[in-house]
């Protein structure tokens, strides 16, 4: 069964639902995500597409990696 990710949700919400996302996102270039308190504050405002735009990560590539890890993407 694939795990659904709603891209309009905040990074905080997504990581709360799937804690393994923290490691995955960090690997993909969101290196500040594990700074203490970051997820709880900035993470509530950030969405994955916004973060990707900020970090210059191609969103399409990000989606592909997520899909490969067994997530289904909801836009």
């Amino acid at each position, binding site marked *: 069964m694939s795990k659904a990710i709603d891209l309009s949700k905040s990074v905080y919400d997504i990581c709360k639902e799937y804690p393994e996302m923290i490691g995955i996102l960090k690997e993909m270039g969101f290196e500040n995500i594990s700074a203490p308190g970051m997820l709880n504050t900035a993470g509530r405002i950030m969405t994955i597409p916004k973060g990707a735009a*900020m970090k210059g990560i191609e969103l399409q590539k990000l989606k592909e990696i997520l899909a490969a890890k067994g997530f289904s993407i909801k836009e």
Partner: protein
Amino acid sequence: MSEVINNREYRQKILKELISELHSGKSVDEVKERFAKLIEGVSPTEISEMEHSLMMDGMPVEEVQRLCDVHAAVFKDSIEEIHRPQKPEDVPGHPVHTFKLENKKIESLIDKIRADIEKFRSQDTHENIQNLRNDFEKLWEIDKHYLRKENLLFPFMEKYQITAPPKVMWGVDDEIRDAIKVVRAILSDYSNVNKEQLADKAEETAVRVKEMIFKEENILFPMVMETLSEDEWFIIEEGSSEIGYSLLENAVKWKPVKISVEKKVESAGEEPSNNGYIKFDAGIMSPNEINAILNTLPLDMTFVDKDGIVKYFTQGKERIFARTKAIIGREVKNCHPPASVHIVEKIVEDLSSGKKDNEDFWIKMGDKFVYIRYFAVRNAKGEYLGTIEVTQDIKPIQDITGEKRLASST
């Protein structure tokens, strides 16, 4: 008499009269003056509330809308404040509005810088170098933008335990500053410099500045907008001009909604007591004594009047929660962060409606144990006059054990 007993009802009545005068054909100019006088010291929110209650009373919407032209005449530009609830950051002079305005200026400078870098890449003429020098000299103005962010905004974020984002951002600010300095240094002594390397470095700096703007607008500003109270924005705004602005001559002075508490009391028919004594249920005191006594009480007190306006707070030696005089005359809801304002409003509502007489909270704050109590203040007839907040560090009291019967000699 009625205006003394119930200001709100009195105003409603006048508003109704004004509407019917407009209905019967009077011009806007004819009623303008009375309307201006009526709403003196009244917040836009209250005016729209009054209009709303007129409609609830059965007044047709179109009739109430007749007032729009009068509003427009009286308020001129600020008409939006009444009918279109504005986002606070859209109000000129609000610190976030100013930050965003600077970002626009910085962005257009970055566009120019990029064009100048391209020119420089194709030919490093004296003129092209000079252009880049000027560009980066201007870009250094960003220092003031960052200084305001770091010294005025970040401390409030830290107060709310938002520590990681400012720390990370401050680090990046410093890297950008360093990058600008490096580019300027190379440009100031342009000889035997690798053209492409310099252009790359300049380009990289421009990109980093852009990225910071993105971070501010998409993370930082939304985050602080939902955390800081209007009162805190006011403090930030007041400290801003001292540091200065980036690429802006001067920022608009921001005026948060504020009521003159003195005028408010006077319009209710009360007069200042000057130096005469005040008679209490049991005894008398001079205003001087009352002031000093309240400041001597071993607790902090803040009084919010029946309309939710902060009217007074004590000036004890050690306040537990900092208050600035700027909050006097502000609506209590503007003095709390948006995220917790509904709690405050609920307390005030329960106390004013008579549902509760008091509401207590106790929290640990470092080595303090803070006891926060809210009491409805009612007169002898039981009419609600306002809410008083009493805050006290009760740790020393909790620590008391045994007995002490003699005064200590020290």
